[in-house]
């Protein structure tokens, strides 16, 4: 993709044009403003560090979530959900963010949207268990996309 950054440079305003391969899991507008922070668009050291930092963080969080699920620790799950929600939202990883939000809400023993109480702990845990599978898939997808994006040699 030798022309990627060229495109970006020339079409600054048109969101997503420079990043056609990011798919709909990533909010281009949000992600692009991080890319814009890269001093060098070939190296992309800043955004890369952010993104790979996120990978690390997400994987750690998933491990913790699994553990918390095992321990039936809803509060912990909610808090982990909130945590990952923040990071993923910052990168514009919409799907991951939304799933994390659900975990946050289920962890508070609420429904998906966080509006209604759900006193059944088992139900909440099983919901989290289900959504955890989903969020990991969603994460794997964006991870793949992003890794590809960064692995693509920046030729110029």
């Amino acid at each position: 993709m030798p022309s990627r950054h060229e495109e970006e440079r020339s079409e600054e305003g048109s969101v997503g044009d420079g990043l056609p391969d990011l798919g709909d899991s990533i909010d281009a507008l949000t992600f692009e403003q991080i890319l814009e922070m890269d001093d060098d668009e070939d190296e992309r050291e800043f955004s890369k560090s952010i993104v790979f930092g996120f990978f690390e963080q997400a994987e750690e969080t998933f491990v913790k979530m699994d553990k918390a699920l095992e321990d039936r620790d809803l509060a912990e799950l909610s808090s982990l959900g909130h945590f990952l929600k923040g990071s993923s939202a910052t990168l514009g990883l919409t799907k991951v963010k939304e799933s994390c939000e659900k975990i946050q809400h289920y962890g508070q023993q609420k429904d998906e949207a966080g509006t209604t109480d759900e006193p059944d702990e088992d139900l909440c845990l099983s919901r989290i268990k289900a959504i955890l599978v989903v969020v990991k898939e969603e994460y794997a997808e964006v991870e793949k996309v992003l890794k590809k994006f960064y692995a693509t040699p920046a030729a110029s």
Partner: protein
Amino acid sequence: MDKGDMAGSAANNSSDFVSSSWSRSSLFTAPHLIITRRMLEDPSYDAIVRWGEGGESFVVLENEKFTKSILPKHFKHSNFASFVRQLNKYDFHKVRQNNEDNAPSQYGPNAWEFKHPEFQANKKDSLDNIRRKAPAPRKPAQAIDDQYPAQQIDLINSQLMATQQQLQHLSERYQDLAQGHVVLLQQVVQLQKFVKNHDGVMHRVMGFLHSVDAQRRNSRIEGPFGNNAAPGIGSREPLSNDGPVDDHPASPLQQASELLGEISVDSLQNKELEQLSADLQFRNDYSTPPNDHSATMAPPSETSSTHIGYSAGNDLDSMVYPVGHTNGIDPINSEHINNIPYALPPHGMIPVNPMPEMVPEGNANLGRKKGLMEPIWGMNKPRVLLVEDDKMCAKIGSKFLQAFECGVETARDGLEAVNKINNGAGQYDLILMDIIMPNLDGVSATVCIREFRPDIPIVAMTSNIRTDDIDMYFRYGMNDVLPKPFTKEGMLKSLQKHLASFLKGAQFPNSAPMPHPGGFAPQNAPHPPLGLNMAQLSAGQSLKDETSPGKSPATAGSWHSPNQIPGHSPVGHPPGYMQAPMRDNPYPMTPTHPHPQHGYQLPPNQIGQPRGTPQHRRVMSDMSGGPSEEHPDVKRQRMFPPPPPGSQGGFQQ
């Protein structure tokens, strides 16, 4: 009373028709009535107007003739309605027809009979009594006008006073509680530190015991080989000699280890802070006596040195940027950022060199961004404290801020933020504050910071942006909300809004701190450094291992209440300075309300927003359908559970 003079005056006042026969009429008798009486006494009018039967009323028999022929002679008008109106003003009453038994009227169908108890044929003098009721046609109306508002004003005044008193009470109560809250926070922090340190000590002891235990076991194993236990080992045995004789660690040791593992410092502190936040929420239900905190929780202060440090740090004027420091980056900044344990990407593909990023200028590659962002600041660049526990968000936020040419420092939680503000190491011009953070959440941190920096703009940076959340942020002294995930534009807007004095071409380009609204600045100087103790705590000086367990270090004098500072009322400064202006001048209380926290009952956009944030509603509406968030109650209490290992250190610092 000189009747002659009076008569003369009356005559001049009324008309030529008033004769000396009215000598008894005072100046104040209405001319109108005098004339009327005179008309009645003129026998030539009898067919038209005359006294009624018995002389207690008078009757206009021929309305039309009266109006056309008599009225013009005596008055300047020929309007019967006016005549009647005048009479009404003097409390005359028309005698109603149905008052009289059957006959439509004894004077004829068109007759108008008027009556006034003091207006009688045989009582000339009683005219004076009528004027008592209505001295002049217009004055009564005015009197009523005057009286009515006067009463109203009295009423309103008293209500106002009552309301103000109430407000004052509320403010005082609020102050007490806020103070108590801070004190409690400090205590909690203290306790946390203590517990944490204690924990460390316990672990060390455990480690030691384990080693001893291991030696003991070794000695037992070695024993059978005839190697008579060395006296040295034997002498240590009493340390663990109630352990079972097997090859496992002594069971008391195991139990102790388990206990230590269970009672993690993190869970403890979270619970306490959660509780505290909950208390904060319900503080209005409390009825704590004002002096309670200071009485029970404020041991004498011994640490005046910190005050000095504080006041030096708080001296806004002396804290302008170092001369020539125009690139907006303070050495502290990069230094600090290097200290942040950001995990580097695991892949090693990324050049490990954060420094170039820290310097917004002198990097040619910034050209594009620079094009986007024209320099917006004047001579001095604002310095922003970014409080954010998520290192990614912190990193991105810092990056944005640097792109805006702001000096950036970060804090990983509320506690660190409070410490940074408190230490005076850096004077910040704006704080971007995450809400949900470990150790001390953003709202609580704001409350603390507000105690000694009532003026600094604090912008909540959060994804919890439901209306009640936002109301809460404002209520507790925050100035604005920057919804997460934040955008560059949103951040820039917020900066421009709250750092107007730094903008290029601003009126006060050289004033490092925000220009205070009137009355703010003086309060800064004598303000007791409420949060200082935390700095102290955080410096790790508070641990008193030698303190006996029964004696809580929190009350043993290692922290002090700012209330103890001489010259301040026991409940600290806020009630003090609240009361003074309020008593002297009950009205401008709200406008001069210097402390954002006092304004909690005000609309949010008035709180601590002297520069005005008319847009703040817009900000809220800008939040494009923010995800519905956690229940506020839960959220308020929610602290991060054990923070990720990387950020643990924040607590220690």
